[in-house]
């Protein structure tokens, strides 16, 4: 079998696309029975470059927010399940450790309670509009940065619960077996519990990721030019509601792409089953 170089493939596809345009033009300008339909189709295709450009913002915001939130949420999750492992003793040191552990647990739980319990839209408003009024230091010029911060903080609360649930779904016997052969709590977590928990996190994290991808349309309210903002602009400027169709199609393509990626990751991590 002969391998076809990539550039040849692209130019072949380009040629096919050119043929397609000519074909659509033929119908649209030919004045046939369905000419009006093809005129609309030509409009839709004409909007695509602008929509695709705006969807990069959607994509960038989603990926950066989820990645930031993932790092943050591991600490939140471990904070929420933090317990002093050893049995109570009389030492002052242990008393202090117990106090700190309880404080960490309360702070983590309070964080999750707040950010899950209030609307993302209001959190976004608060960070973009209210914080600068409280203190000019918090004046975030970039709309993207404001959206990124609000989304990261919000997603972290949800991911923390996903990670906590995944950790606690690993049978207790695993931790006991690890402790029985002499591993410390942190070693047992790192080498035994977390590697098994990763796999269980993937489906809910994928779920969350797709939700964020769509929730990112909220940023159109602070006039960040994401896919939704661009779509509504086009709809009002060109006075055509048809623009929602290609916009939704682009959202679908993005979610489909990430679903495939997450499914592959799940299969790869679960090789031992």
């Amino acid at each position: 079998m002969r391998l076809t170089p990539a550039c040849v493939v692209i130019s072949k596809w380009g040629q096919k696309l050119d043929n397609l345009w000519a074909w659509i033009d033929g119908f649209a300008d030919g004045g046939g029975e369905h000419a009006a339909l093809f005129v609309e189709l030509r409009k839709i295709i004409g909007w695509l470059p602008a929509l695709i450009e705006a969807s990069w913002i959607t994509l960038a915001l989603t990926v950066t927010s989820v990645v930031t939130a993932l790092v943050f949420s591991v600490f939140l999750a471990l904070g929420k399940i933090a317990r002093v492992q050893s049995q109570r003793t009389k030492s002052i040191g242990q008393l202090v450790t117990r106090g700190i552990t309880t404080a960490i647990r309360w702070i983590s739980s309070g964080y999750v309670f707040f950010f899950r319990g209030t609307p993302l839209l209001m959190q976004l408003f608060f960070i973009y509009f209210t914080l600068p009024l409280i203190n000019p230091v918090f004046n975030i010029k970039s709309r993207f940065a404001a959206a990124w911060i609000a989304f990261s903080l919000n997603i972290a609360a949800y991911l923390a619960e996903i990670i906590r649930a995944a950790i606690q779904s690993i049978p207790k016997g695993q931790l006991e077996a690890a402790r029985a052969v002499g591993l410390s709590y942190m070693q047992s977590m790192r080498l035994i519990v977390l590697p098994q928990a990763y796999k269980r996190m993937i489906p809910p994290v994928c779920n969350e990721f797709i939700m964020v991808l769509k929730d990112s349309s909220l940023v159109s309210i602070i006039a960040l030019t994401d896919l939704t903002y661009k779509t509504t602009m086009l709809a009002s400027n060109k006075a055509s509601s048809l623009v929602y169709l290609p916009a939704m199609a682009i959202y679908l393509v993005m979610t489909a792409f990430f679903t495939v990626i997450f499914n592959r990751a799940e299969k790869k991590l679960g090789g031992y089953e």
Partner: protein
Amino acid sequence: MSMIRCEKCNKYFGSLHVLQDVDLTVEQGEVVCVIGPSGAGKSTLLRSLNQLEPLYSGKILIDDELLLHCEKGVIVESASRRDRKRLLLEMGMVFQSFNLFPHKTALDNVMLAQQIVRGTNTETAREIAMNLLVKVGLEEKADSYPLRLSGGQQQRVAIARALAMQPRMMLFDEPTSALDPELVGDVLRVMKDLAHGGMTMLVVTHEMGFAREVASRVIFMADGCIAEDNTPAELFDHPQNPRTQQFLTSIL
């Protein structure tokens, strides 16, 4: 010299008094089987020795060294952190549900703790692990993941994993209770070999044949107390305590 000694051990689950002033001594080289009805506190006793369950009150001595002394759920006296770790590592533990690490191969299961806890280098750890897998008859399964092994094979890997830390005594918590009947024999054979090799063993079991044949002493527990403690021949053939008699007639 006693390997394990517990004195006046008490333990509660809520209001349930699961261990009531339990005194137990296991001498070096002894194989002690613990039998009794479910809920008698057999597993809890084993798990308390290994610190998997906190004790309410009592003393535990390993190898004649104080591991810990509890009163009212608080440790009032204990070995230093380092000594405690060392003493706990003298006890290998085998669980009813195997608890192998499913994301590691059989060989990795046996190698892991040696490398992490003892800092053994990879080649030595692998050599020790392979020797142990040969000993339990599973050298050809070294690269298999636990979920691809039968229950009996998993339990034998679990025994090898515990032995890899070179413990001086082994605790078995109903090692054959989760197994299909035809797989029990393989595991018991490995345990018999261990006993004949001079390992000190404390075995919670329902395998009366094993207890009679291998044990140097059999302990009958009921309602959180040690009701009878005797040689297998005496305990099985001439039980003194009425609870023991009742239990033995109900299972035979």
